[in-house]
């Protein structure tokens, strides 16, 4: 089967790749583009470890065909920090130990940033339901939810 040529933007940079029609965005990112920050935990959209944004909307890269990236703006964990400066969520996750093994962390951060972009003042319940698509087996979510709420407060105070 002939490969499809895709022109897209990833983390603000122009990117081109060839993909099979049935290839997922996650496979192209991980195996072709060297973007291994997004993880495959399930391949069925249940765990959120491969969370990315597609034109600003939170999606699972494992459920997205790579060809759908044509002309779109993709955001991944690799684009979250600005150079050496971590995003406030990344910094807060470190300070509040909101990770143990770290496999869910990239997806959790992408999802949390997507929440705060949309709702800068979420309640605990809103954080919990927004992150319900991101499985973490280590932490029991406690420190993750606290880190997101704390970051939201910091961002509101400095806004």
């Amino acid at each position, binding site marked *: 089967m002939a490969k499809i040529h895709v022109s897209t933007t990833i983390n603000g940079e122009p990117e081109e790749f060839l993909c099979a029609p049935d290839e997922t965005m996650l496979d192209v990112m991980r195996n072709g583009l060297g973007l291994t920050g997004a*993880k495959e935990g399930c391949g*069925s959209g249940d765990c959120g470890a491969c969370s990315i944004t597609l034109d600003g909307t939170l999606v699972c890269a494992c459920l997205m065909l790579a060809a759908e990236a044509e002309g779109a703006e993709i955001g991944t964990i690799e684009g979250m920090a600005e150079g050496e400066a971590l995003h406030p969520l990344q910094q807060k996750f470190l300070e509040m130990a909101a990770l143990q*093994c770290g496999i869910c962390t990239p997806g959790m951060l992408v999802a949390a940033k997507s929440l705060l972009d949309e709702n800068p003042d979420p309640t605990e319940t809103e954080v919990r339901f927004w992150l*319900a698509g991101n499985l973490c087996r280590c932490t029991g979510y406690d420190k993750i939810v606290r880190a997101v709420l704390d970051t939201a407060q910091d961002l509101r105070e400095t806004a």
Partner: protein
Amino acid sequence: MMSDGENKWIGERTIRPDGADKVTGRAAFAADTAMPGMIWGKVLRSPHPHAAIRGIDTSKAEALPGVKAVVTAADIVDFPFDTPVPLGIQDMRWMCRNVMAREKALFHGHPIAAVAATSEAIAAEACALVEVDYEILPWAIEIEDAIKPDAPILHDFVKFDGKPSNISGKLEHVKGDVEDGFNEADVVIERDFTTRPVHQGYIEPHACLVSVAADGQTTIWSSSQGQFMVRAMTSMLTRIPQSKIRAIPAEIGGGFGGKTIIYLEPLATILAKKSGRPVKMVMTREEVMRATGPTSGSKSTVKIGAKRDGTIIAAEGTFYLQAGGLPGSPIRGATACAFAPYDIPNVHSLGYDVVCNRSKVAAYRAPGAPIGAFPVECVLDEVAEAIGMDPLELRLKNAAKEGTKAAHGPVYPVMGYAETVEAALAHPHSKAPLGKHQGRGVASGFWFNAAGESSAQVNVTEDGNVVVTTGHPDIGGSRASIANITAELLGIDYKRISVLIGDTATIGFSNLTGGSRVLFSSGIAVTESTGKVIDTLRARAAKIWEIDVDAVIWEDGEARPAGDNAGKFDPLTLEELAAKANAMGGPIGGGAQLNTVGAAGGFATHVCDVEVDIDLGIVRVLRYTSFQDVGRAVHPDYVEGQMQGGVAQGVGWALNEEYIYDKDGKVDNPGFLDYRMPVCSDLPMLDAVMIEIPNPLHPQGVRGVGEAPLVPALAAVSNAVYNALGIRFDSLPMSPPKVLEAL
């Protein structure tokens, strides 16, 4: 150095050394690795729960363009059934058959063959071309079916009472005489219970990349809880000497015990050897669910006798645990931990290992202990109600303490079980009001905690900073704790210390990350190594000052003259001594390779509030507080994290998680949609109360903390549901359909 209020770094919530890489996506987990020329391996798995393998024809698969190698059991070292080959707590007779079916396929998903090809798609296509001649056999999935008289027998060599059986092991602990005890009791309660198999549920599927060079040098990158375990097992299954295998621990995306054995590594090694190409293998979630872990399902009977005043006088438990297709369920954890928190004069605890046509169980966080504790803690709740005593007071009255002889043998050292109950009694949670359809449950639990082999190397860099290497994969923040310990001992800022996990070629043997051993064991190895470094630094200062080494002390990151010499010389800092290292005798470093001893058990008590939605049957956890004797919280964040994570897993086990098999003996829910682990919106904040009763046999007072927090959770939730509804669930999970039916 036993820590106290004077500590500068022990007890600090420092930033973990591997943190920046983990929040930016840079951390390299096993599936993130790649090599030039790499090809992909795939496993063909049995479609049947039980079948004899009469023949395998791989010729069509081998002929497919792009296929570079095929392996079957014929390529893997066979360990015959008649001679045990123990390796740690495993037996290579079972391991060689678990990584690849030999005489029989023992469960749906059992590996039959593996293929390496230039793409994953071609490897999968080739798997479908492997022709297997199966003789389908009757199967037994559930314990009841496996132990009935006419059950299909999985292994002819397994005998029980002299007859072929699926009961492949038995373990018994006896203390006193339970019959006498029950005769003295005012209240005797006996109940039957079942629990379902649950998966460890790590988010990272098993993965590895293996390269075998032309000279046989083998390099394995894999996700495991023990690079030395990977090396040893792969060596035994491939006959490649251990010295030729370098096992590199990738960052590990969760394990919870499930990555203490190997699955893919020997297959990828043989495929790499045959093909001459590096081979990468990554399981799908479905493969993880069908063919790895889980922990056992169980059936049990527990009988407890107590006097009116609350004295527990006798306790008896019988526990049947599923082992899966090959022997080896955690009956030790179930039989020993079940009654371990209590000082009971008469105990009889009996466990049976039952093989059945499910995937072979793997360790899961305090293996067996939650299965043993669940029935005991539920019956205790009923005993408390029968004699009109608060369930925490009942536990406190019977609490084991230092000097108590446990039914499973040991006499307890310094321990903090009673303190966890006292803390629970005194906590506001225990007195908070409850609403309609709400209930509160309590339970306690014990885990042994392990010690064992651990190696460390502490090196001072030329610019006066420090690199620490240890040998246990870091699964939950252990590097952060090691940085705290080293900083405390050296008296320098923790940010000057890098902490790494060595591979099998760069650090001495270290036992796997399991048994809650890591900080206990590596804490000792790092303390001893750092002590050697400090001795060298003192000796160098003594040489520079031309005084006796005993007249030099190490304090706040510098050598200072002491005693009669105090104040006579300017102190020498770590940087200054590092700069003079070569002139004064050479590089500065210290290592230790130890078999550590002195681990002390961990105890926890949980208080759980639930609310039951009586229209939907959904049990919601409203509030949860766990109390645990943590020895010394070297890094409190990661101790709390263990406590919270253990609770979350226990809530999942109690309320939703279970394997469902269809009528053909196949797993019907091999994915996260239908195998329902707790998600963020299922849980409240999980309060963790750390009680520090330092372990006197450890330099920092450490006792393991990772496993005990799962143990009480099943019964705490169940007792809360009883308190809310007045209905006791003797079978887990308390899923909505089951709760609705009971209502």
